[in-house]
């Protein structure tokens, strides 16, 4: 037989190993190929390729990047939710083998990983991107091109992670990926490589986003906007960015060391040669606990905006809101060991981290009380975003209370890794983060697209989603008390676990229906949109509502001078009383520099993707080609100087005139 290049049989073997070929995989491969071909065909037929490239793929506009994050996050919510329903179906009855053990293990791993890294994080960044520059009166973020790089690193990492389902097998060691289960000795398919590589990739993007928004908020606020006049969502972004800055480096190292163990023969966390798995656990949770607050602080920010707007009242206790949020940010670094009280750190360490865990409940409680008192003396409007806020209060309070119970160290020995824990973190992550982010999406949708999402359908989606939530997760607390531990793919008869599991599964499907209604809400609202010409459909309070929807590419024709917290609320009254003109004066408008589109971010993402794919299969020529590509694009971009194009004052005046925004 003529000698093939040595990598060819290797590639065939690794891409198509006999033990991972499953009907589901082949089906998914066919569907993905067909879907991709159809999209390309549609784009070519409608001559949309050029449009896509110019308007979206090479854009550096924070508003468009935010929308791309949003689309990706909703798709990932669908994927992660489908995973969840597969898990729930398998657990509906004892010894039900809807999917087998190996598949179940892959599915719960991808469910957790996707929901945390590829759904919640991009949804948060979507809101950061869309809202923060508008809220602080800025023309863009501090580093528009880095912002696009962050997005494309995330997008390609998400693509890579999802590719694992069809090529080579998915990771199967849980979203925490504790060694030595992830070591080659116990896990010889490429699944875990996918996990480590794609998380490293998206982690780089996330870190850059953290830096970007931190600098944006520190350096680019409108004149007069002191720290204590910043809207609370901006405060949340600031605190989240600091958390990202300090939390992601330990994760990077934990992932890198695990990956090196698998692909380069190091012995950090293996059983032989002195490796120590517990080091991974420490590094991972040093990231993991701040990550919890990275996920929830933005939601707190959204709630603070939503409750004030729809109570038609100032936020209650602004200084204590800021103080509590910052306290949470600081304390978040001091609680990571509570994820493994049961790893024998000794009573002194456990007591310290148990108390710090309880301590963090105090500022969280302060926020809840302040929100309720914001409603007190207001006039509540039950719009969809407000409903998500209202649903959050009982959910988050119960989830927080069980969190305190988990912090009571001896009790945690019983709760640890049981369904009680599963119920707890879903209750805070869905009740806090997801409700918050959905509230934010409904609230700022008109700012992004210029029309509201249909409120009636939105409420249907809400009642299904929030209504399905309770029967899904409340039974799981009890299942934990009945001794059911997490990540079991099935369970024997006679444990008494089936009734509650059935209820939980039914609840899960109701939530799934809620997601479908949400998607149809988005699509139908787009078809039957009623354009909002005011730019301020909710009668808002902060800067972003003072400009047209969707915002023009330069955001603010003239940057306002901010003199109070709810600047737009006060400004509206001043404008009504004729104290101030209704818009920027034409003579105040100056030329504006707009960052130019650039292909660098998407090319960088593609080069990373190529290198990462090579790394997953330890196919070094591809990996090195990708690395060379990364350097090539970076060096090319270092020599680029002319990043801006100038919009003349005349053009801006015309646009503003067209939007009917010019003051006399």
């Amino acid at each position, binding site marked *: 037989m003529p000698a093939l290049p040595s990598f060819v049989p290797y590639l065939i073997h690794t891409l198509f190993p006999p033990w991972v070929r499953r009907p589901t995989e082949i089906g998914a491969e066919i569907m993905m190929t067909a879907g991709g071909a159809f999209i390309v065909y549609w784009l070519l037929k409608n001559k949309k390729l050029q449009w896509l490239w110019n308007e979206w793929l090479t854009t550096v506009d924070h508003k468009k990047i935010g929308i791309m994050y949003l689309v990706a996050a909703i798709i990932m919510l669908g994927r992660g939710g489908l995973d969840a329903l597969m898990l729930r179906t398998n657990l509906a009855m004892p010894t039900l083998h809807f999917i087998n053990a190996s598949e179940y293990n892959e599915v719960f791993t991808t469910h957790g990983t996707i929901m945390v890294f590829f759904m919640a994080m991009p949804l948060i960044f979507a809101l950061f991107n869309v809202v923060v520059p508008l809220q602080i009166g800025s023309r863009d973020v501090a580093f528009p091109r880095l912002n696009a790089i962050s997005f494309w690193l995330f997008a390609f990492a998400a693509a890579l992670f999802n590719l694992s389902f069809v090529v080579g097998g998915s990771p199967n060691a849980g979203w925490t990926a504790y060694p030595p289960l992830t070591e080659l000795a116990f896990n010889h398919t490429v699944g875990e490589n996918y996990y480590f590589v794609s998380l490293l990739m998206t982690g780089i993007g996330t870190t850059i986003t953290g830096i970007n928004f931190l600098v944006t908020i520190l350096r680019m606020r409108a004149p007069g906007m002191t720290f204590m006049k910043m809207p609370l969502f901006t405060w949340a972004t600031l605190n989240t960015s600091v958390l990202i800055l300090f939390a992601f480096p330990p994760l990077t190292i934990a992932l890198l060391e695990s990956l090196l163990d698998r692909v380069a023969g190091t012995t950090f966390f293996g059983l032989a040669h002195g490796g120590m798995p517990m080091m991974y656990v420490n590094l991972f949770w040093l990231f993991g606990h701040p990550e919890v607050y990275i996920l929830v602080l933005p939601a707190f920010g959204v709630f603070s905006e939503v409750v004030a707007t729809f109570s038609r009242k100032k936020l209650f206790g602004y*200084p204590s809101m800021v103080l509590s949020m910052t306290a949470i940010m600081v304390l978040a670094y001091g609680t990571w060991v509570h994820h493994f009280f049961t790893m024998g750190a000794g009573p002194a360490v456990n007591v310290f981290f148990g108390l710090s865990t309880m301590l963090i409940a105090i500022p969280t409680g302060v926020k809840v009380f302040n929100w309720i008192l914001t409603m007190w003396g207001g006039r509540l409007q039950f719009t969809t975003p407000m409903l998500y806020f209202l649903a959050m209060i009982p959910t988050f309070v119960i989830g927080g209370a069980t969190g305190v119970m988990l912090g009571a160290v001896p009790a945690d*020995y*019983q709760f640890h890794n049981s369904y009680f824990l599963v119920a707890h973190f879903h209750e805070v992550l869905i009740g806090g983060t997801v409700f918050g982010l959905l509230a934010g999406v409904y609230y700022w949708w008109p700012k992004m697209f210029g029309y509201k999402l249909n409120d009636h359908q939105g409420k249907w989606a809400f009642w299904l989603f929030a209504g399905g939530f309770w029967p899904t997760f409340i039974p799981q607390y009890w299942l934990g008390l009945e001794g059911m531990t997490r990540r079991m793919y099935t369970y024997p008869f006679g444990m008494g676990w089936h009734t509650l599991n059935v209820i939980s599964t039914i609840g899960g499907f109701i939530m799934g229906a809620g997601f479908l209604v949400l998607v149809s809400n988005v699509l139908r609202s787009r078809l039957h949109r009623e354009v909002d010409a005011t730019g301020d459909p909710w009668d808002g309070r902060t800067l972003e509502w003072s400009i047209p929807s969707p915002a023009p590419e330069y955001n603010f024709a003239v940057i306002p001078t901010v003199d109070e917290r709810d600047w737009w609320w006060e400004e509206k009254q001043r404008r009504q009383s004729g104290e101030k003109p209704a818009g920027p004066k034409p003579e105040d408008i100056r030329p504006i520099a707009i960052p130019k589109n650039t292909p660098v971010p998407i090319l960088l993402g593609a080069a990373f993707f190529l290198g990462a794919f090579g790394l997953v299969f330890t196919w070094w020529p591809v990996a090195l080609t990708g690395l060379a590509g990364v350097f090539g694009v970076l060096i090319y971009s270092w020599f680029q100087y002319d990043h801006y194009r100038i919009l003349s004052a005349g053009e801006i005046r015309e646009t503003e005139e067209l939007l009917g925004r010019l003051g006399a």
Partner: protein
Amino acid sequence: MRTWAKRIPLALGLVAVMAGCGGPHAVVLNPAGPVGRVELNLMDLAAITMGIVILFVMVLFTIAVVRFRDKKGNRAPYTPNVEGHKVLEVLWFIIPALILTVIAVPTVQETYALAKVPAKHPLVIDVTSLDWKWLFEYPGQKVATVNHLVIPAGQPVLFKLTSDAPMNTFWIPQLGGMEYAMPGRVLPLWLESYKPGVYWGHSGQFSGREFEKMFFSVKAVTPTAFNAWAASLRKTAPAMTVADYHRLLQFTTVGYQSYSSYPAFTFPSVTHGFTLKGGMYLLMHNNPAHD
């Protein structure tokens, strides 16, 4: 009318349904030993304290939602410019702190109390988690079992946990909380059964494909019966050879097994120095199966 008040009875009803069908199986709520009892007491205390907080918040919340709706003729006061209330805001910090002290103090006490075995020379059982089975070795009795555990009732038993495979946690919910069994370390956990009885245990840490099969049975018997059981095992059961241990290391699930003796290397030998104050990091013993 979609008020939140409407949903509260629904939630309460659900809890009642759950309590009804799950009651007898709630192993954590029916502790059969002092460790589980202490842990349950703390859970109860935390649940009651937190329940009071939840109740207070929910009442306040419900009133706010019902009273301040935006509808015509609502005569509740409308105060759009209220910015805060200094005293209340400080109280929000102080009262929760006081409430948490109620939980924090016993937490500290019990954490320290449970770290000490309440006996000078407790019965020691060396536990090794394997893929996907549990190996129990009785260094005092010189016998070993797989997937089933026999302990004397009415006295504390000290489990020394390690793993020769990915991490697991050793959990007998009715006797008390779990602790990790992980490679390279030996962690202590003591449990006690008040009376003779039969319980089940499981792992709480996912450890691979057949993780679900990491169940084991626990039988608490009188001390006399325990000694008799160990003596009979020494007479009737086969001895565990090195080859037997290597078979256990393989990725398999097995039923119950008993052995009259076991090779010395199967449990990390450097265990004698460990203290209950936090275990110690151990060098991995040389294990041919993983090289």
